[in-house]
């Protein structure tokens, strides 16, 4: 009995250490996946500033995420925030204010793909997605050639390639993109491919499919940088990496 007790103390210590060290090392080593949600492009210099956080501080101070070393830019000038229904810009009491498409914003405003944002004398273009795509005016701009597209899960960073004539999304087993969450419909949506151009169709009556914060009511053309939401799951539509 004494012998068992003697070895038990080693076993107890070994078991506890195995759990604590495994978990601690995992926590120390794991890194959240970095994802470029949007890009700010300086119109004067063409310099690009990737937006990789849900909240990105813009200003002259050293602790800002996007540092603009100009006297017309306040130390903490603005914050660009990714919310449930898209991007917003907040003026953090800057002296010169924030201008969106030439108009001064009052505290906050919603940002859209291709918007022009001015922080003091610094004028930028805002693009949703991983690269500055320039102004989109017609279909040829977005699909000038046959590209391979994908949907990227904004939270996990997982990329789902879009192949074939259509891709189904839903809770149903066998869906091309299967989302196992209670608030997702069995047949949530379908993406169709027409000559290299992708459209999204909502199929759910209970959970709306959102495209850049707007409910999809009819087949809608997809553009690079579009954010599609099925319930709690947000995806970025873009060229396959």
């Amino acid at each position, binding site marked *: 009995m004494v012998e068992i007790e003697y070895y038990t103390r080693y076993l*107890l210590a070994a078991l506890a250490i195995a759990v604590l060290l495994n978990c601690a090392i995992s926590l*120390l080593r*794991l890194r959240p996946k970095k994802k470029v949600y949007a890009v700010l492009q300086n119109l004067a210099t063409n310099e690009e500033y990737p937006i990789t956080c849900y909240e990105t501080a813009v200003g002259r101070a050293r602790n800002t995420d996007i540092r603009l070393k100009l006297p017309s830019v306040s130390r903490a000038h603005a914050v660009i925030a990714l919310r449930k229904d898209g991007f917003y810009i907040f003026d*953090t*009491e800057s002296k010169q204010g924030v201008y969106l498409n030439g108009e001064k914003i009052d505290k906050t405003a919603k940002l859209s793909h291709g918007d022009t944002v001015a922080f003091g004398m610094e004028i930028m273009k805002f693009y949703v997605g991983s690269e500055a795509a320039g102004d989109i005016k017609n279909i040829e701009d977005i699909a000038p050639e046959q590209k391979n597209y994908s949907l990227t899960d904004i939270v996990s960073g997982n990329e789902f390639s879009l192949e074939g004539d259509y891709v189904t999304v839903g809770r149903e087993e066998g869906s091309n993109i299967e989302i196992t969450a209670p608030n997702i419909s069995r047949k949530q949506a379908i993406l169709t491919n027409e000559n290299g151009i992708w459209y999204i169709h909502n199929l759910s009556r209970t959970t709306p499919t959102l495209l850049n914060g707007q409910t999809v009511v009819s087949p809608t053309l997809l553009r690079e940088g579009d954010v599609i939401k099925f319930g709690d799951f947000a995806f970025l539509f873009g060229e396959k990496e």
Partner: protein
Amino acid sequence: MKHKVKNVNLAIMLAVITLFQLICAFTLIEKGESENRLNIIITFGGYILAEYAYFIGAKLILGRRGFEVELIAFLLTSISLSVTASVYPSLAVKQLIATLLGIAGFVILQIILRNIDFCMRLRYPVAFLAFGLLVFTLVFAKITNGAKNWIYIGGLSIQPSELVKVAFIFVGAATLEKLQSNKSLTKFIIFALGCIGTLFLMYDFGTALIFFFTFIVISFMRSGDIRTLILICAAALLGGLLILRFKPYVASRFEAFGHVWEYFDTSGYQQTRVMIYSASGGLFGVGLGNGKLRNIFAATEDLIFGVICEEFGWIMAAAILLSYVALLVYSIKHSRYARSSFYAICACAAAALMLFQASLNVFGVNDILPLTGVTLPFVSRGGSSIMSCWMLLAFIKAVDRGTYRYGGVRQ
């Protein structure tokens, strides 16, 4: 080739923790008196059931991934229950109930934190409730062990300052959303001064120090202004020195600090015993229930680190300390990519608070810092303390973007 870091395997880790708990339970049943066996079975049985219920719910129903944070908390709480059941078998069930309440608080707080707008609406009621609770304690509490921080209701004793820790971080971080158009820290400073001042009047200096440290962390994360923080720290230091100068009885509580061996049988009694018995534990300890430190006053609360060193060994004690560090590093890493600064501040403040509290406890019992009587997070016995720790864990969990994503996606 770059090695891909993966989350730990939940099934394996859970099996290891269960084995640990079962061995502890059988050891205690074997050693304990027959009338305590039922208490031990209820304590470990109830705890293992709660543990599995949580992980089944989170993994199979909600489809979550990444359980390192909870696994650490469950194991540390197991150690706490084992030591409690070993030293005070009759109090083990009470500790289990407090733990279950804490786990319930952890789940409820995660649900509340999901909705930031709701959190913003709650911040003023929570602030008034928290401050009111401290004032109530100051007025109605009796002095116990030198501090006026316990309230007795019927057979229950509650330490409200432990629960106010959760409210303190919640309020401090919740006012941040306003920061995007309002950089003022004034309201939070008033709230913090009220809480810390009340704790001083209660002679609960350890907790006051923890609140002050948390205040500094939150203020730094909110403003990033180091100069203001240096001024605040200097003012606090000056205030502390003035208190020691004009209230000598405060200083007398720390008279043994730095030379406890000169007060071997008086005010340095606990620290000297901790050092003696910790040293005798060696790398793997003398075994659960075989230690001698357990007979010293507050062995399962303030001196728990010494008991772990003695009965479980130094390696496990070091692993416990590493896990607090890991929680803080995890919070800092995820804070940059959190869904909101609110989550980032909550998580960093909660993890920093735990690490700071653990440091005060460990360095205090080893005479590196004055002994302030604070608990070791998750491990010390105490209902209020364990509930507070589990609720603080909800803040750490909320910083992970994946926490509020239910279900999995696959192609």
